[in-house]
């Protein structure tokens, strides 16, 4: 075990996977000699050279398109998109090609590309360095969507992603790249997809969160504990495949749900969670589902701290949930 930051854990995961398998390579903007703008690929260029840690021209279309071609040919490319906000030039490649290759070819052409991208707010990045657009990808059949919130999960889920047979969007909560540290097991240690993590057990209410929303969710649970409320906090970890059983089971136990994410509320991932509860935990629910989310606006700059859900807002929603029904 070593104490690492989240971004260090990712860096280790990349290095170990490349060392173990010559078919694993990394490509993207500034990932090589510069080590990535967040230093996630630091040291890899020196160790593995420019043919495996490929600095590409400034084209997300090209990065994902080329990665798909490499994957079709049998390599395991890991594409970095510098900020999730810049993934849209590659959107056609992702939704039309990457997500559909296996299906449209009748299973002949699996396409195991990992796309890593820092996402979310909290670094004063304004409209274009802060977005959380996981819902677009979760709605696209054929993609897996993974979001770690701890260093151990970051490395473990990334390792699973690299060896997964399917395309994986691996979204890294950049706000906690360095703010969160934790013990990370040495060596290959895969965290399975489709298993949510009970970050804190409780009986009165469930908070569902992921990524950088985990710390404020846990803080909120503490605050509520001081008020005598026992709150369960679930870290979804993989949005696709979703651990639906864990989601439903928790609310069957607690009867109350607060869903937290940074993305705008309207048609966000929280809507799916609420819908699942309205369908499958309907008779257990004691009060209306609450969503604590980013507002239905583009991401702001000066007001980012008021935009992002914080522990106070989560507590506020939890109290409303606990007092209703």
């Amino acid at each position: 075990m070593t104490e690492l930051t989240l971004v260090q854990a990712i860096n280790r995961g990349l290095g170990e996977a490349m060392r173990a398998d010559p078919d694993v390579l990394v490509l993207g903007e500034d990932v090589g000699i510069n080590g990535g703008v967040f230093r996630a690929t630091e040291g890899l260029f020196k160790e593995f050279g420019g043919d495996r840690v490929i600095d590409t021209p400034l084209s997300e279309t090209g990065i994902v398109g080329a990665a798909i071609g490499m994957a079709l040919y049998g390599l395991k490319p890991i594409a970095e998109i510098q900020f999730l906000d810049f993934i849209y030039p590659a959107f056609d490649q992702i939704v039309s090609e990457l997500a559909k290759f296996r299906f449209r070819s009748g299973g002949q052409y699996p396409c195991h590309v990992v796309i890593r991208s820092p996402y979310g707010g909290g670094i004063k990045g304004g409209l274009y360095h802060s977005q959380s657009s996981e819902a677009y990808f979760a709605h696209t059949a054929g993609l897996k969507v993974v979001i770690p919130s701890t260093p151990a999960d970051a490395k473990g889920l990334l390792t699973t992603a690299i060896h997964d047979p399917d395309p994986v969007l691996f979204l890294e909560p950049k706000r906690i790249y360095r703010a969160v540290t934790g013990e990370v097991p040495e060596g290959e240690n895969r965290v399975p997809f489709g298993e949510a993590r009970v970050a804190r057990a409780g009986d009165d209410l469930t908070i569902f969160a992921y990524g950088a929303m985990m710390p404020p969710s846990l803080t909120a649970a503490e605050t509520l504990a001081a008020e005598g409320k026992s709150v369960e906090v679930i870290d979804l970890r993989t949005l696709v495949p979703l651990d639906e059983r864990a989601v439903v089971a928790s609310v069957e136990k607690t009867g109350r749900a607060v869903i937290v994410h940074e993305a705008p509320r309207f048609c966000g991932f929280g809507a799916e969670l609420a819908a699942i509860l309205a369908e499958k935990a309907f008779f257990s629910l004691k009060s209306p589902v609450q969503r604590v989310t980013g507002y239905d606006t583009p991401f702001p700059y000066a007001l980012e701290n008021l935009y992002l859900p914080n522990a106070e807002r989560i507590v506020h929603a939890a109290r409303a949930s606990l007092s209703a029904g």
Partner: protein
Amino acid sequence: MADAGTVGAPTETVPGEDLSTADLTKMYRAMALARVMDERCLTLQRQGRIGFYVPLQGQEAAQVACAWALDTEDWIFPAYRELAIALVRGVPIKLLFDQFIGNSGDVLKGRQMPNHYGYREFRFVTASSPVGTQISHAVGAAMAARWKGEAIVTASFFGDGTTSSNDFHAGLNFAGVFKAPTIFFCQNNQWAISLPRERQTRSETLAAKAVAYGIAGVVVDGTDVHGVYRAVKDARARAIAGEGPTLIEAQVYRLGPHSTSDDPRRYRTDAELAAWKAKDPLARLKHELLASGAWAEEDDTALWDGLKKEVATALAAAEETSPVDPMTLFDDVLAERPPNLEEQRTEFAAMLKDGVLRP
């Protein structure tokens, strides 16, 4: 998978070397087979026996000569109009009809519109509809092949209109920067549905766009198998030698409609069509073969008759093949079904059983 024999493999040649009469005869056969299938499919669509079709008439020489110059180990990244390439690759006719029908024999499990086929066995990657996306795939695959130390090339196929796509730009630029061993084979058939070539871009030729990426660019007469063959052979040799990619513009004409949904009389003149019909690549190669003395009118009649029968037999077999199993709908989305899909599949099976859904 069954034999590739309807077309026959290319006779070995070295770069730059000319095609033998034996090759030319086989190539003519491949072109004729494509023509026969094409005409059959247009009829089938009119009769409602297949839902849609994209013809290739006018582009047979370009495709067959290009495929001839490639190695069977090379990877093809087609658009939707590359029937003759598939045939040269050896894809059995029945398998193609299975795809057009979308039956249980279809390798794609009936999931795509006609013409969007692909066969891993033949290194012919499954096509999609959005234009141009295959271009950057071919570049990535070429980089991968080089990384794995395999001396093959990849070739992407696309039309004049597709030079305007995002992936044309990204793909050619990546290939230039990384000297990827790949060939960009642009069939300039003068039209992108209703948009004429000269309204697509003000570039003098499409091959001239190679300048923007620091790569080689050549224009060839796409009705001339010799010119196309040589251009592709040369491009392939350069790619393998590490000298980088080539953009080849084969100038052809789309003699038919864009697809069976299209009516070209709305946007182009009979005169233009007639002028290009006079340059029909099949007539041109037939003429050459006749002149060479290696081919006679009787051979020709026998060839076309034989091909028609062959095609009719394959079609009949495809039409007798059972429909696709409804339960396959839930396969191949991911390697394993996630919980939501598993549940939907169970509900679907129950609805089929209860008659809520009827295949």
